[in-house]
């Protein structure tokens, strides 16, 4: 594995670490919130005497959560993240297989010597070539 390929995998792992940490926190706190809301909803209004057994049962095993919207949100988020990472990886690997790194860095205004690659890969190459060009210009300034 080249240094550059290793670097992009390390970057992706780092970004995923951040997402997973935040996602785990949100899922955990969200579940806690739902359990508590159910707990409160389950209680009768007013200071009615309840047995301790009932209270602990209610806390430990809340009724089925009414949080379909939340679940859809999470699924959409995971879906788009998975798609984003997979697409980025596919693009990177196809570009790296086709074009040597040094050539990518040397590109300025030449036509893109790509044939038979996926459309995504071509878009990535175009974006990267422009970006390298921008970078060169900003450095020269």
């Amino acid at each position, binding site marked *: 594995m080249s*240094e*550059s390929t290793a*670097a*992009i995998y*390390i*970057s*992706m792992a*780092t*970004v995923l*670490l*951040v*997402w997973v*940490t*935040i996602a785990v*926190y*949100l899922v955990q*706190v*969200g579940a*806690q*919130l739902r359990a*508590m*809301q159910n*707990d*409160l909803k389950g*209680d009768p209004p007013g*200071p*009615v*005497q*309840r047995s301790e057994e009932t*209270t602990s049962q209610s806390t430990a095993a809340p009724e089925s959560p009414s949080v379909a*919207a*939340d679940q*859809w*949100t*999470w699924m*959409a*988020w995971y879906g*788009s*993240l998975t*798609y*984003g*990472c997979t*697409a*980025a990886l596919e*693009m*990177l690997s196809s570009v790296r297989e086709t074009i040597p790194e040094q050539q990518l860095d040397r590109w300025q205004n030449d036509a893109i010597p790509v044939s038979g690659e996926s459309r995504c890969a071509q878009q*990535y190459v175009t*974006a*990267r070539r422009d*970006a*390298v060009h*921008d*970078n060169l210009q*900003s*450095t020269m300034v």
Partner: protein
Amino acid sequence: MLQQLGSIGKLLVGIWMAGVTIATFVIIPPYQGLGDAGRIVIVHVPTAWVAVIAFTVSAVYSALYLRRRLPVDDAKATAAAEGGLIFTLLATLTGMVFSQIAWGVFWNWDPRQVTILVLLLIYAALFALRSAIDDLERRRRLAAVYSLFAFVTMPFLMFVAPRMAESTLHPNCAFIKGSDCDGITLQVGHVGLLGDQKVQLLGIEQQGDIVVAQVKVSTPGLASEAILQPGYDLATRSYTDRPTFPGQRFTLAIEAVNLERGEVRINMEAPGSGLLANQRTLWVFLAANIGFTMLFVWMFLVRSQVLSLEVQIAQRKVALA
């Protein structure tokens, strides 16, 4: 209605952050001197920034609690501090990965690394304090006072102390073009520190308009030692050659020369210089900041609700008993 709006908001945050993730790897260019690893900056800096916002929110609600004595203010102050702690931890971890790639070590006691660690410990102590006091009212009051004191240290630790350091390896002052760190001025024979590198000016040679300095550089413990020869053009007042520090991606450049006094100002240029000068990088960076702030708001709202409900449930249980 409010619940629906909340769901839509969450969905938008998810899509926004997914977009930022894709843009981080596809749209922005590789950074000079760092290549693809520099993309970590797109999550590293916003997490640190959101930590600042979180601790500020925590301080505001702590002050409100001391004024109004409402348990809900304490819940919000705690939720914000908790979010701040998580984001500080993430900033530290992502920074360590960045440090490993850029400087070759996970931790090198750079001023900014030290200050963020101190901040982490200060806010970790807030939660230790909270858990050590059983009496609710006393716990809230003391935590609010502590939180305000902790907040006073935050701007100093995040913004002031790292900039007071004579020099730092941290590329905080190298991100924006034109705002490079000040280098150090050395006379021939003198020794100084650039980041964690010991540098000694051995001599200066002039050939026409070109000045070449001989600089001996060594890391602490003399793990590596080398003699570098950066060049400077007196006519154009710019460097001609910037050699790289041994085993690192940093370069050594001459910024000014005073031949009469036999001294030069040398500086260490960090990879990532002019990072935000690139428009694509700038926009993705801003989008990441907005996204992380929205994520914090989400975390804050949910957590503060949980803490408020905990209070309500506890009160209800007392009433029932």
